[in-house]
């Protein structure tokens, strides 16, 4: 599991971060974001890559679990 922290980043930075990370061979990723736009955009990106995405919210932060 590769873990990424995209808190404090505004779009398109979180998408750039996950895109770069997913160039590795890892099957599972976890990325924390702190705004709705980042949550939605990272979800769209991962789904577009054929991944499954699940989201957990806690105190205005979102943890996205991405599985290839």
């Amino acid at each position, binding site marked *: 599991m590769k873990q990424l922290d995209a808190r404090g980043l*505004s*779009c*398109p930075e979180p*998408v*750039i971060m996950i*895109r770069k990370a997913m160039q590795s061979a890892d099957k599972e990723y976890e990325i924390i974001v702190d*705004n*709705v*736009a980042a949550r*939605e*955009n*990272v*979800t*769209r*990106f991962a789904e*577009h890559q054929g991944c499954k995405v699940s989201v957990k919210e806690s105190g205005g932060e979102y943890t996205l679990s991405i599985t290839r």
Partner: protein
Amino acid sequence: METEVKLTKLASCAGCGAKVGAGTLVHLLEGFRTHTDPRLIVGYDKSDDASVYVLDDKTALVQTTDFFPPIVDDPFLYGQIAAANALSDVYAMGGEPRLALNIMCIPDSMDKETVQEILRGGYDKAYEAGAIITGGHTIHGAEPIYGLAVSGFVHPDKVLTNSGAKPGDVLILTKPLGIGILTTALKAGIVPDVDEQQAADLEKRIFAQMATLNRAARDVMVRYPVHSCTDITGFALLGHSFEMAQGSGVTIHIETARVPYHKEAAACAEMGLIPAGAYRNRDYAEHGVLVRGDISRSMQDILYDPQTSGGLMMAVPKECASALLDELHEAVPAAARIGYVTEPEEAAIILE
């Protein structure tokens, strides 16, 4: 021309995407004491593009201001786009801009040449619009900001508000959508399915579009009995349509297959290259939008996408719509019919 420090890197959000959400603004202004004046025919209470104050039988003053952080790295182009965007609000009221004031914020790190190029871009567009920049105000700050406060004139009987649409009207849009998504994608350096040359061409195309004045569209528009007009900027097609539908007491039908947009924006939206402003716009307008039929998520993203220096959207009586559109096409080739207006139905906006 590129500056050493990329202008857009100095900005936390780009262009009209920086705009505070429409819903937030309404709440911010609630309950303030203001004078009333019968000569103020379009004011703070109307959510319109500019205010309009009647001076005499033939003249009304149109006032507006608009500014934002850099949306492009070329300072001259940034100045042009910011000015074209600010001037647009006067065109959207059917008026002609005459006087303008610079509004500027410069970080300490910005060199004199860059500042001058931004201003030169602004002066260039003001000149093209026939307006005179008479002065302005510049401060130091963390993020660069540029824009104009603009005064223009319009005949009091020919003011075009965003609340005059009538059932039976046809809706016309003069610039293609997708600017917010594409500038986000270009900022990320990811535009799917295009090579470097195509990406460069795309950039050129959307930069030129943003720097294009809505003057030609306005000049054609005022020759027809148009009922209502607004410019499509930060609140996106659906945010501005929502304001028009609510202000006019009508339902706006958007024929999504007819809406002009930059084709590359669809693939970018699918990859999550969407500006935060698009989600704010969705938040603001979604409860008023009914999706009828199978309209893709990426198309909906494009309809919520904040536009910087976007086109005019006019509500035009059906009888003169094709004549107006024909004449418009000579000056503004991208102009298209995008929908129509009916009596109120189950939602303020219906996507078809």
